[in-house]
């Protein structure tokens, strides 16, 4: 266990982040915070990709260098995924704005009550 | 056995499917619409009949989707139609009776001025299409296709009335038939396909005497083969109304009478019995069924046929007893159908050639007799709106020809000599006798149920002809609680305890005296048959089954002055009288000269094919094991 924490601490941290994100989505009633949770969750996955491409002593794949180079593929992937993630967040926030203007609340529990009343 | 490629089996199926389109298209003109119905019926029969001589001389007409259009229905499964002797038996019957039913239906629907007649006639034609499809199906998948479609197209006929009762009956109908078809039959078919694929090229095609590959596979996997057998029997058993899967049939009687007649006494229910015949004779074959023993704890090993026979024997006894207690005529007939169909299943499951011939011949024999009975019930309903036996006292005066035909049909049900039912029952008894051993039990059931048949159908005839509106005997079995009526002697004390309704109770006793005739006749022919609204003798009246349309019940019964006397030709429209007369005559013809009336010949041809002999005579006098050895050779 200790050894795992010592050598693979990045992964452990990222999974904690992953968990926090999921928890926010499930447990938080505020819609914006839910979206933040989703973003956090996604970021954890992006970082996971980057972390696994890390090579001890390797240099960035952009700069031509002697010696070991970090794998470029995960970085490309993450760049793409970030773009996708941003688009998602943007659409999500747009929806939140619309919901707020219709119902005047951002809290899911209140929202449920309002909708039940209608 | 010569196989000829021919489009005729397909044409026989499609002709009424095309009629459906024409019927719907000419919905504005009822005469044209009914014209299409009749035309389709006649041409369907003509097409089927044109194949009859060929089939009897050993030709099989086959049409397959893969060979003619190059379309494979499912991988390794062909969609094929095939006019073989067994199929011809059912197809000839259904298409022949449809001709008369289509006249009768026109008379019935117009007589009652029913709604949605176009839908009715369209669904009717579609049902016939699928029934003939079932008859000609060459493999289990094809028969499944038509079996499911039959359930589907008969649903509108059951739910025709569009009232609550009809909808409930329709729901029940769909549930039962789809459980039988979509679940049991499909599962059984898949199992057969899988079993045969374990030993060779997967197939579901019928083979007279049983599928060879299946016999091979059954040796390796006896458990699965048994499971598949019972799945298939249960699948077809639902439509054949074998207990405990029978209760949809009585509820389906809310449908208009032509439907109850042709579909729920002939086409639909017979498709179930016919399917059982296919499974026993041409999927498993008598040999395999007998040799694939089922070990029952405590009894030892029995053939697969024995459980089926026991269920059938139970059904026919129980249904006959239930029928005695039904006051609604169509329901009584429905339970009679349940019982009679089990004759067929019982005969088939005895496996002996004679029993099988008897069972197969019982398909047309019962059809003619039961159709007569239903047509009579429908005619009575149209003319007098009477549905309950207890209201029919003296109705013989009003409808002499109808009730005479009813008497013939009833005698046929009971297996009186000279009427079709006798011949089939005779063969089945012979078969049971030849098998011997424990099978005397089944012979006994057959005889007992003959007596029960008389017990539930004779009262109708008796009521109609030998009772008068004002002198109507109570029927003890029907109207009294089981074990007799206590309160006949102490009525006043007993009933008065229930307080408020003492008046009614008083009536109930008073009407026994002659003074109250006019009043009693007015609405209720007899106090004992007073319908459910008098709850006075709660337990007494409550035991009478009064399902059915309550409003009809109130409008039924004799008019104020009693039944008027009419001549046999003026009792109803010729559209209804003529079919009744023809079908009743048919029942008699089948009983007097079964040999010349085609059906028996077809039935023996089937058995010859199954047992692989040249002529039926070779099977004469053989015991079951000897007969099964004949197959093996």
């Amino acid at each position: 266990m200790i050894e795992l924490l010592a050598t693979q601490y990045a992964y452990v941290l990222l999974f904690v982040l992953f968990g926090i994100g999921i928890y926010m989505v499930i447990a938080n009633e505020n819609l914006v915070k839910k979206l933040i949770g989703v973003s956090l969750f996604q970021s954890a996955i992006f970082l996971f990709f980057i972390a696994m491409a890390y090579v001890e002593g390797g240099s960035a794949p952009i700069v031509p260098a002697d010696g070991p180079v970090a794998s470029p593929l995960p970085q490309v992937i993450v760049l793409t995924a970030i773009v996708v993630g941003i688009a998602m967040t943007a659409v999500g926030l747009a929806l939140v704005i619309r919901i707020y203007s219709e119902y005047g609340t951002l809290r899911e529990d209140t929202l449920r009550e309002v909708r039940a009343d209608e | 056995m010569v196989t000829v490629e021919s489009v005729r089996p397909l044409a026989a199926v499609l002709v009424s499917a095309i009629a459906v389109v024409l019927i719907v298209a000419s919905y504005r003109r009822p005469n044209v619409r009914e014209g299409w119905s009749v035309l389709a019926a006649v041409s369907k029969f003509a097409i089927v009949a044109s194949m009859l001589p060929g089939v009897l001389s050993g030709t099989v007409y086959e049409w397959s989707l893969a060979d003619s259009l190059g379309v494979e229905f499912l991988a390794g499964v062909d969609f094929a139609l095939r006019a073989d002797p067994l199929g011809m038996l059912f197809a000839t019957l259904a298409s022949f009776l449809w001709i008369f039913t289509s006249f009768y239906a026109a008379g019935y629907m117009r007589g009652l001025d029913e709604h949605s007649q176009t839908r009715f006639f369209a669904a009717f034609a579609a049902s016939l299409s699928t029934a003939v499809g079932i008859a000609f199906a060459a493999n289990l998948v094809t028969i499944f296709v038509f079996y499911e479609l039959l359930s589907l197209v008969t649903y509108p006929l059951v739910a025709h009335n569009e009232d609550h009762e009809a909808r409930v009956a329709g729901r029940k109908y769909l549930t039962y038939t789809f459980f039988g078809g979509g679940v049991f039959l499909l599962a059984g078919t898949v199992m057969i396909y899988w079993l045969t694929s374990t030993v060779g090229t997967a197939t579901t095609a019928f083979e007279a005497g049983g599928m060879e590959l299946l016999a091979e596979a059954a040796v390796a996997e006896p458990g699965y083969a048994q499971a598949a057998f019972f799945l298939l029997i249960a699948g077809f058993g639902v439509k054949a109304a074998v207990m405990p899967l029978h209760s949809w049939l009585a509820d389906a009687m809310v449908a208009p009478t032509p439907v109850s007649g042709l579909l729920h006494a002939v086409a639909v229910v017979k498709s179930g019995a016919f399917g059982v015949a296919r499974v026993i004779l041409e999927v498993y074959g008598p040999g395999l069924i007998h040799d694939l023993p089922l070990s029952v704890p405590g009894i030892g090993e029995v053939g697969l046929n024995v459980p089926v026979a026991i269920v059938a024997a139970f059904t026919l006894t129980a249904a006959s007893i239930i029928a005695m207690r039904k006051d609604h005529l169509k329901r009584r007939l429905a339970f009679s159908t349940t019982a009679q169909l089990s004759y067929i299943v019982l005969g088939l499951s005895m496996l002996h050639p004679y029993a099988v011939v008897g069972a197969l011949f019982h398909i047309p024999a019962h059809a003619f007799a039961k159709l007569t009975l239903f047509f009579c019930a429908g005619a009575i309903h149209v003319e007098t709106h009477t549905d309950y036996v207890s209201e029919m006292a003296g109705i013989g005066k009003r409808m002499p020809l109808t009730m005479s035909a009813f008497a013939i049909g009833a005698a046929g049900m009971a297996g009186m000599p000279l009427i079709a039912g006798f011949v089939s029952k005779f063969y089945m008894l012979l078969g049971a006798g030849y098998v011997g051993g424990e099978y005397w039990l089944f012979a006994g059931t057959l005889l007992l149920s003959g007596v029960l048949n008389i017990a539930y159908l004779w009262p109708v005839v008796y009521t109609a002809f030998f009772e008068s509106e004002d002198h109507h005997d109570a029927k003890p079995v029907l109207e009294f609680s089981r074990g007799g009526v206590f309160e006949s002697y102490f009525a006043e004390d007993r009933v008065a305890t229930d307080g408020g309704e003492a008046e009614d109770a008083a009536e109930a006793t008073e009407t026994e005296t002659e003074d109250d005739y006019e009043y009693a006749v007015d609405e209720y022919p007899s106090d004992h048959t007073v319908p459910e609204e008098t709850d006075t003798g709660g337990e007494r009246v409550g035991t009478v089954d009064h399902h059915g349309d309550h409003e009809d019940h109130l409008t039924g019964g004799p008019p104020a002055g009693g039944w008027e006397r009419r001549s046999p030709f003026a009792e109803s429209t010729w559209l209804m009288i003529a079919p009744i007369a023809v079908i009743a005559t048919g029942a008699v013809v089948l009983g007097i000269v079964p040999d010349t009336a085609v059906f028996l010949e077809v039935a023996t041809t089937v058995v010859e094919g199954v047992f692989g002999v040249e002529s039926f005579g070779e099977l004469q006098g053989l015991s079951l094991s000897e007969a099964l050895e004949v197959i093996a050779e």
Partner: protein
Amino acid sequence: MSSVGSLLDALGGFVDLLPVLLIVTPILMAAAPVALGLRFDRTGWTVAAITAVGLVSGALALAAEVYTRGAVIHNLGGYPRTYGIELVADEFSTAIIVLVATISAGVLAYTRRGGPRGNTFYSAYLLLTGGLLGISLTGDVFNLFVFLEISSLATYALIASGDGPESAVAALKYLILGTIGASIYLTGVAFLFMATGTLNMAELALAIPGAEAQVLVRAAFAFIFVGFALKVAQWPLHTWQPSAYQHAPDGVTPLVAALVSTASAYALGRVMYTVFGPDFLTSTPYLTEIVVTVGTVSILAGSTLAVIQRDVKRMLAFSSVSQFGLIVAAYGLVNETAFVGATIHLVGHGLMKAGLFAAVGLVSVSYGARTVDEYAGLATNRPVAAGATAALLIALVGVPPAVGFVGKWYIGLGAVRAEQWPVAVVIFLSTMLTLAYTARLLEKMYFTPASPLEAAHPSEPVAADGGDGAAPLDRGVPGAVSVGMVALVVVAAVGAIALGFAGGAFFELLDPFVSEVFN
């Protein structure tokens, strides 16, 4: 066939480009309605229609090539597949491509009159189509994620374009869960990459059996399966789906219901069979059991929930949960027959649900009915719509000859072949379960006369003018229905029945792919 062959020769290298064009064209054209909308009004439909027609012909040309000559593989930019992007049109994916192209074209015919309209709708529509075609064609697991997200993005936008505020809530719910699903899938991809160092499906298939860290591969499968279970809406992860279907505009639901989940289910099958392969599936302990359990539980739960729904759209949405359960269960059986059955059911279910949801839209416009009770008397008042709906419902039950039966036959046969008896029982029982909710609607349409009581919308102020709110028989606006709307429903119904005869053909067409996978 020879004429097809010579035609294909004439097309030559063009066919090779088709996979790219099928994806790139709609995505690029998605910008056109908005861009052109700055200058001209009403250009959206023209652009979308031209693209849709092009896509259909492209998909058909591709299908002709794939089913006569074998798979078409295109490496984007000529990079080798180890790190480039590969597009694969094989027998499996082509079936989905044809489905996506034709259904989306049909839906376009519907929305011409039935709405929604407007340039933003057409942009989102084209983006969705492109994304779905991308999911079907891609041969790269990460690329699959991107296309999943592109199509989801468009779907969220389309659902949110509904009139009421409810649609925004439904869309947000879908967005959150959909994004989580896709992200979980991405996590699985990360594990796969860690274990093998490649993202190409064909390369992964080669690398996985020899991968040292099988734990990583198994973890990858677990994440990928859960991600897709969310996307495909398997119980208990289906919660987003009913409200998304229900609150989407009527013109959008057929598209979403028929294609979006179908594409995800296709992707699940692709990943399970092409990437992991049958050997991995069967050799991993508890894997098939879990997949099959998720599927069968979804069948049961979906049907049960469908029976108790009052809103027809919601009922059909739960029906989708159960039908996709059938497909997932079939995947879990891991044999050829079941896999063919799953593919057929994917296509068949897509077609039937597109028709059914279009019919729901049609009925709500022309008859003003949205709940099961309000469908009373539909048959007498709108015979064509009722007839087509009835045919589709019956096909969905699996009454032969219809495509629903073909799928069920193969899946049932697959379950029996695998000797997985509990699954077989559920599959055969699913007929009854489906019947339970379809019969309810059939009975209302055909055997329940429309009565004023049943017809009145309780939520609407009917008797504002002091009237008694009766005479609802001429409710709805029959004139608001275009030929295109009716055509989509009727064509779907006819197609569902016609494909019922194609059981053998389907099997043959898929055979090269299936026998390669199961060698």
